[in-house]
C-alpha cells in the first residue's frame, strides 16, 4: 500500500488534497518561506545595529524592516508554526483518527493563510509599513503614509485561517478520539493544541475587529482611536493586547506540548505529573485572557488597573513554572540519551526558563516602568518566542521528521545545529538584557556610542544563529534524497503515531489502533 506522499504525486493532487498530513506539509513549506523572509529582515537589522550611527540603511527603511520582521514572524510564522504543521500532521495520528473532523475546512485554512500571507507580502513589496507590528494609534491611523490598510487586510485574512484550524482541532479532539483514547490518555501535545485552539477561536475575532477599525479610521476618518477626532488611543492598545497577549500563548503552548513528548522518549521513562501539565495548559489559556494590561503599565492606564494586571500576570507564570518543574522531575531516574531532538528540548528548557523568569521582571510594576519599551523586553520575548517556540519547533521537526518523510537526517549535523543555535541565540539576546537595563529603547536604528560594545556582541551572536538555522535547512533537504529509511519507529517511542509506517499511509490507520497509557517507557520487550 502506498504512503501519503506517493499515493498520487501530481501537483493537482497536492493542491486539492484534504489529507491532514499533506496539508501539514503545505503549511511547512509556506511558513519556511515566510521564516526566511522574516530572517533576512532580522539579519539586516542586526547589521545596521552593529554600529552606533545609522549608516547601512535609512531610518525609514529600518522602521519598515522591523515592522516586516515582527509582522511576518508573528502572524506568518510563529502562530501557525507548530499547530499548522506538526499539529496538523500529528493530531489525528496521535488520537487514532483518520483525519481531522473537517478536512475541506483544513485545506481552506491553508489557502486562506497563503492568500493573506501573500497580501501581507504585497504590502511590503509596494513600499512597506512602518508602524511596527503593534500598529499603535494614532500613528498607524493618522500619521503614517505607508501601506497600513493592505497589511491589516492581509493579517485580517490570516486570522480566519487561525480560527478554522482552531475550530477543526477542538472538534477533532472532542469527537474523533479512538474508543479507548480517554482524556487522561491524550498525549500532552494534544492537550496543548486543544488549549491553543481555544485561544485561536475566541481571541482572533477581537483582532479582526481591531484591524477593521484601523482601516475605517484611515479610510473614513471615524473617530475611535485618534483623539483629534474625539477617540482614545489607549482603546486601541486594550483591544490589540486583548488578542495579542493570548496570542503569545498560541505561540508558546504548542512548544510546551512538543517538549512534553520529546523528554519522556529520550529519558526513557513516563512523564512526571501528567495531570498537572495537562491542567496547566488549560490554566494558561484561561489566565492568558486576563493579563493584557501588563503591556500598558507606563501607557496611561490607571494605577489600580496596573495593580490588578500585575497581580494576574504573576499568577499566569505559575502554570509555566509547574511545567518546568515537572520536566525537570521527568529526568529523575531516567536513562537519558542525547539525540538531536533531546538536545533541542534541553535547549528549550534553559532558554524558556530564562525567558519566563525575565518575564517576572516585567510583571513587577516598578521595574517594568523602567524596562518597558527597551531592549530588555526585546530580549525577553525573543527568549520565549525563539528560545522557546522555535527551539521546540525545530526539536519537534527533528523528532517527527523520520515519521513525516520516512527518512533519517545525519545525526551529527543535527547535534551540531542544536548546539550552534543555542550558543548563537544566547550570544544574540543575553547582551540585550543588559542593554535594556542600561536604558536602550527598542526600535532605535541609531543609538548612543556607549551601547555599541554590547550590540556588536549581539550581532556576532546573530551570525552563529543564522548558521545554526541554515544547517537544518540544508540537511533536511539532503535527507529527502539521500537519507536512510527511518522505519516505523526509529526512536523506539510510545504514542500511536509510531505504530503506523513511515511515512504513514493515506488514511493513517487500517484498523482502530489499540490505545495504552501515554508515555509507556521503557518500552516492554524492547529494553
Amino acid at each position, binding site marked *: 500500500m502506498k504512503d501519503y506522499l506517493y499515493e498520487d504525486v501530481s501537483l493537482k493532487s497536492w493542491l486539492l488534497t484534504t489529507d491532514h498530513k499533506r496539508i501539514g506539509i503545505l503549511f511547512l513549506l509556506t511558513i519556511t518561506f515566510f521564516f526566511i523572509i522574516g530572517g533576512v529582515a532580522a539579519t539586516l537589522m542586526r547589521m545596521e545595529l552593529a554600529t552606533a550611527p545609522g549608516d547601512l540603511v535609512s531610518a525609514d527603511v529600518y522602521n519598515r524592516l522591523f515592522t516586516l520582521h515582527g509582522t511576518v514572524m508573528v502572524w506568518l510564522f510563529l502562530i501557525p508554526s507548530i499547530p499548522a504543521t506538526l499539529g496538523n500532521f500529528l493530531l489525528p495520528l496521535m488520537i487514532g483518527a483518520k483525519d481531522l473532523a*473537517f478536512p475541506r475546512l483544513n485545506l481552506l485554512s491553508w489557502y486562506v493563510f497563503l492568500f493573506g500571507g501573500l497580501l501581507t507580502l504585497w504590502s511590503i513589496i509596494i513600499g512597506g509599513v512602518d508602524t511596527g507590528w503593534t500598529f499603535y494609534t494614532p500613528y498607524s491611523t493618522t500619521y503614517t503614509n505607508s501601506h497600513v490598510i493592505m497589511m491589516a487586510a492581509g493579517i485580517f485574512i490570516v486570522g480566519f485561517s487561525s480560527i478554522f484550524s482552531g475550530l477543526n482541532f477542538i472538534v477533532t479532539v472532542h469527537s474523533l478520539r479512538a474508543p479507548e483514547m480517554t482524556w487522561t490518555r491524550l498525549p500532552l501535545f494534544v492537550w496543548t493544541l486543544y488549549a491553543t485552539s481555544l485561544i485561536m477561536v475566541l481571541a482572533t475575532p477581537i483582532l*479582526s475587529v481591531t484591524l477593521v477599525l484601523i482601516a*475605517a479610521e484611515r479610510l473614513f476618518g471615524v*473617530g*475611535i482611536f485618534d483623539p483629534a477626532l474625539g477617540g482614545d488611543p489607549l482603546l486601541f492598545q486594550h483591544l490589540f493586547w486583548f488578542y495579542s497577549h493570548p496570542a503569545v500563548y498560541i505561540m508558546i503552548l504548542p512548544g510546551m506540548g512538543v517538549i512534553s513528548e520529546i523528554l519522556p522518549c529520550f529519558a526513557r521513562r513516563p512523564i512526571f505529573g501528567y495531570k498537572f501539565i495537562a491542567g496547566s495548559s488549560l490554566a494558561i489559556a484561561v489566565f492568558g485572557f486576563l493579563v493584557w494590561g501588563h503591556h500598558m503599565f507606563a501607557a496611561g492606564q490607571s494605577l489600580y488597573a496596573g495593580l490588578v494586571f500585575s497581580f494576574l500576570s504573576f499568577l499566569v507564570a505559575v502554570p509555566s513554572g509547574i511545567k518546568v518543574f515537572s520536566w525537570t522531575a521527568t529526568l529523575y531516574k531516567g536513562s537519558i540519551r542525547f539525540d538531536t531532538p533531546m538536545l533541542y528540548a534541553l535547549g528549550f528548557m534553559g532558554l524558556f526558563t530564562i525567558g519566563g523568569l525575565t518575564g517576572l521582571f516585567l510583571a513587577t510594576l516598578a521595574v517594568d516602568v523602567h524596562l518597558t519599551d527597551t531592549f530588555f523586553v526585546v530580549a525577553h520575548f525573543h527568549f520565549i518566542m525563539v528560545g522557546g517556540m522555535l527551539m521546540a519547533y525545530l526539536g519537534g521537526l527533528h523528532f517527527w521528521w523520520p515519521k513525516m518523510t520516512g527518512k533519517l537526517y545525519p545525526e551529527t549535523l543535527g547535534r551540531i545545529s542544536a548546539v550552534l543555535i543555542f550558543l548563537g541565540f544566547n550570544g544574540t539576546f543575553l547582551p540585550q538584557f543588559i542593554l535594556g537595563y542600561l536604558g536602550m529603547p527598542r526600535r532605535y536604528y541609531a543609538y548612543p556610542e556607549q551601547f555599541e560594545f554590547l550590540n556588536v556582541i549581539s550581532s556576532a551572536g546573530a551570525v552563529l544563529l543564522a548558521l545554526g538555522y541554515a544547517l537544518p535547512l540544508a540537511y533536511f533537504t539532503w535527507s529527502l534524497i539521500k537519507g536512510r529509511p527511518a522505519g516505523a519507529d526509529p526512536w523506539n517511542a510510545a504514542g500511536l503515531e509510531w505504530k503506523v509506517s513511515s511515512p504513514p499511509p493515506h488514511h493513517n490507520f487500517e484498523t482502530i489502533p489499540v490505545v495504552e497509557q501515554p508515555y509507556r517507557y521503557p518500552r516492554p520487550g524492547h529494553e
Partner: protein
Amino acid sequence: MSSPPELGMQFSDLRQQKDAYRLGAWVFVASEIMLFAGIFLVYLIGRMTHPEAFTEGSHELNQFLGAVNTAILLTSSFSVAVAVSKAEDKKYRTASWLLLLTAVMGICFLGIKAYEWYEEYERARVPGLNFTYEGEHLPGLLLFFWFYFTSTALHAIHVTIGVLVNLWFAWVCRYRAHWVPDPSPVVLSGIYWHLVDLVWIFLFPFLYLVGGAS
C-alpha cells in the same frame, strides 16, 4: 447539486459525524459571538465618548422599520425552531414549509433593511460614499453611522447566508428527505439562524433605541 450527505471517511459512524458537526457549529457560534462582542464593546465606548452624537444618530434612524424587522426576525426564529423539532420527528414536509417560511421572512428583513439603507443614503449618511454633515457632532455622528453600516451590513451578510441555507434545506426536506437520515444538518442551520437573530436583538436597541423615543 451536491451528493447526499453521507459518512465522511474520517468518521467511524453517523453518530460521531453528527456530534462533530454539532460541536463545530457551536464552536463557530462562540467565535462569532466574540466577533460581535468586540464590535458591541467598541460601540459602547464610542457612545460613551460621543453621547449626543449617538443620540442624534439613532434619532435619524427609522425606528418603526427597525421594530418591524425585529418582529420579523423573532417570528422567524420561532418558525425555524418549530421546523427543527418537526424534522427531528421526521415530519419533513411540514419542516420544509416552515424552513421556506423562515427564508421568506429573512428576505423580507433584507428588503426592509435595504430600504432603510436607501433612506440613509438619500440623507447623505453613508461614510466613504456620500457622508456630508455640517453640524457640531461631526466625528461622533460619522462614527455612529460607520458603526451602523458596518454592523448592519455584517449582520445582513449573515442573514443572506442563513436564507440560502434555509432554502437549501427546505428543498432537501421536501424532495430529498432520504438525504437526511438524521436531522442534524437542519439542527445546524437552526443554530445558525438563532445566532443571526440573537445578534439583531442586540443591534436593534443599541442602534435604534439609545436616544429614547424621538
